């Protein structure tokens, strides 16, 4: 095999909230629950204006294969169904609920019976509404049901958390250890896996130590922690597979084809949580940080809470925010409004002041090659950007633009501040439109 590690960049960690124990946010005055919180077909609302809903009640679902149902995070009255701008730029259907703050639990919430086989397990996981909580929000039930189940032997739990600022996965490992291990064991039992790896960056030694201790106490030998370099982007799926197994994973290939089931640590923990309590995914742990937030901390917020209310719970704005991110600073989305609701895969809300928000002026490329040295996949971002600027679809394709996972390492290191990663995203559409395959 080639080199031991793929290229990566050192990004300052800013893990300011690593020591902040999670606080549970009180129920806000209004929640807006999006009907498209996963990759795939959006859900149809199952409730109408005026209905009374309870905690954990299913309020959205669809027949489509790639999907996950959506549950109410509060008890209260449906005020209406509205269309609103989404963080991705399109429009989402939102179910607006005014909570009565009694938090009455729905009759639908029952502790699931122990599944007899994989098919029942997968069915239960779908009922929990789980999606990949690392960011991609791919419905988890599909991941647990690979076509080549006999070739899949490993569980890889992604707890790298390589994004700066975010510490929610870190807190999850420390605070919900039991659920995490239960989740691992369930997945390994039903998918008949031999070995589980919990992959953690070495900037979280307390989490590694804690997990090792608990695993030892319980006498579990088929689950291990796996220490990763604390460099960006070790938590990217294809990078992680290489780090753990030393195998090259092509773009468009599923982890199952590489012989493993790969899931985010919070997802796995929620699996354990669901089979213990029967409560579907209705609340999410997230890091609230950034220099515009008065009291950065880790919180658990009901899904559908407005960003505005989340920041209000964290002491409000310390100074005027100019940029608010859903997710980390490397791959997170800048949102146009703080009245957008929290969705399932939010692991951070970051608000930055003017000085931290301004986009630096782009200057000419000086051919320094740093983008190429930073790219985990050995792409040549400067050549890709030139090809994009020429609108040269064939050159983009030949330079493997479709391998880019948009981790942003190239844009991060560029001394000319060129938006290289973004140009690759645009470059992919150029290739697609030209129909080159």
């Amino acid at each position, binding site marked *: 095999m080639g080199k031991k590690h793929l290229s990566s960049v050192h990004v300052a960690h800013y893990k300011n909230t690593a020591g902040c124990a999670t606080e549970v946010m009180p129920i806000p005055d209004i929640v807006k629950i999006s009907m498209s919180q996963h990759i795939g077909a959006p859900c149809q609302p199952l409730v109408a204006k005026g209905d009374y809903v309870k905690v954990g009640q299913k309020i959205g679902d669809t027949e489509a294969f790639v999907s996950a149902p959506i549950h109410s995070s509060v008890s209260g009255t449906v005020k209406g169904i509205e269309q609103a701008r989404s963080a991705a730029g399109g429009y989402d259907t939102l179910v607006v609920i005014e909570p009565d703050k009694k938090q009455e639990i729905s009759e639908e919430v029952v502790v699931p019976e122990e599944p007899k086989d994989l098919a029942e397990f997968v069915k239960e996981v779908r009922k929990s509404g789980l999606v990949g909580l690392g960011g991609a929000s791919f419905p988890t039930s599909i991941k647990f049901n690979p076509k080549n189940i006999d070739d899949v032997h490993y569980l890889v739990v992604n707890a790298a958390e390589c994004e700066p600022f975010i510490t929610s996965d870190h807190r999850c490992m420390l605070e919900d250890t039991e659920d995490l291990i239960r989740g691992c064991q369930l997945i390994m039992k039903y998918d008949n896996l031999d070995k589980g790896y919990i992959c953690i960056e070495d900037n979280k030694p307390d989490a590694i130590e804690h997990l090792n201790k608990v695993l030892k106490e319980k006498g579990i030998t088929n689950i291990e922690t796996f220490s990763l370099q604390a460099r960006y982007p070790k938590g990217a799926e294809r990078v992680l597979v290489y780090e753990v197994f030393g195998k090259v994973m092509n773009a468009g290939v599923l982890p199952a084809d590489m012989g493993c089931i790969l899931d985010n640590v919070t997802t796995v923990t929620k699996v354990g949580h669901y089979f213990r309590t029967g409560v579907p995914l209705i609340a999410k742990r997230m890091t609230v940080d950034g220099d515009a937030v008065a009291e950065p901390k880790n919180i658990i917020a009901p899904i559908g809470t407005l960003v505005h209310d989340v920041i209000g719970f964290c002491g409000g704005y310390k100074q005027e925010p100019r*940029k608010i991110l859903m997710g980390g600073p490397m791959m997170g989305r800048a949102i146009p409004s703080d009245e957008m609701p929290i969705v399932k895969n939010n692991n951070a809300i970051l608000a930055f002041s003017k000085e931290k928000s301004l986009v630096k002026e782009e200057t000419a490329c000086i051919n320094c090659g740093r983008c190429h040295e930073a790219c985990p996949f050995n792409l040549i971002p400067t050549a890709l950007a030139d090809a994009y600027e020429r609108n040269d679809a064939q050159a983009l394709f030949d330079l493997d633009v479709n391998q880019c996972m948009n981790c942003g390492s190239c844009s991060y290191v560029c001394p000319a501040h060129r938006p290289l990663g973004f140009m690759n995203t645009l470059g992919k559409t150029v290739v697609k439109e030209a129909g080159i395959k």
Partner: protein
Amino acid sequence: MAKYNDNLIVSSSPHLVTALDTQKTMLIVMACLLPSLVVSTVVFGFRVILLTAVSIAACMFFEWGWNALLKRRQTVSDCSAALTGMLLAFNVPAGLPIWTLLVGDFAAIIVVKQLFGGIGKNLVNPAITARIILFISFATEMTTWPAPKYVADATSTATPLGVLAEGSIADLPSNMQMFLGNIGGSFGEVSAVALLVGGLFLIWKKIISPIIPCCFIGTVFAFALIYYAVTGQGDPLQMAIFHVLAGGVMLGAFFMATDYVTSPLLAKGKVVFGIGCGLMTMVIRLWGQYPEGVSFSILLMNCLTPLINDFFQKRMYGGKKK
């Protein structure tokens, strides 16, 4: 609590970028040239500082003037013109008339850099090319070498490579003198130790990759070692060290051949580039018309850079086999 729903900045990720920019890169390189400037001032006097200052100012003026004239975005503040000015000054004798140096600055910034599209677009290294233009156009001025202060009773002297070209190995200065810089020559090139300090700092700071300097200097050393062992003139090891310390090898290998814009992007290309520079330098020194060949070798390899870049396509992770 006020709400924010119309004035937030929405930009593409990543939302963090490194603090290093073009300007800082150029300033670090200039700082790494300072040890050499200090030694040159000691060896040749304060005229060295005057020439450097004039050259930097002139290059910045030409860059500013061109952008102002063509109503382009100002690029003076990226300091790349200042670096060009500094490098060009380092490549001339301490006694060069100022107007001659100004001709070189004009050639470097306007002809070699801006006519090809400005920063990042020039094909060849502006400082090297301007040096060659001066060298050919003003042969007398460019080869009148003031004597170092600490060599007795002389107003002008020959460079060690000039002495070698005359065929008298016995008259060469000692390698220790060469290493420290108490010799004649272009004023920025004389002190190998000062350039080495600056160059190693650049490598340590990851501003430049060590590949080009290592391949360049290694090739010069190996070539000289073999040549003198085969021909039997002088002590091969001493002569190999002499060739590494003499002329523009140190300045060229660390500061000129590593120019981002005009050197290959990928590691394999850099190896070829460095070896090519070393070979050309030694061929010109040993068999060519001129005693020194560093500038010509870098210029030639600059011209080959696009070809080298095309030749070495990198295998992508997970990409198709080519």
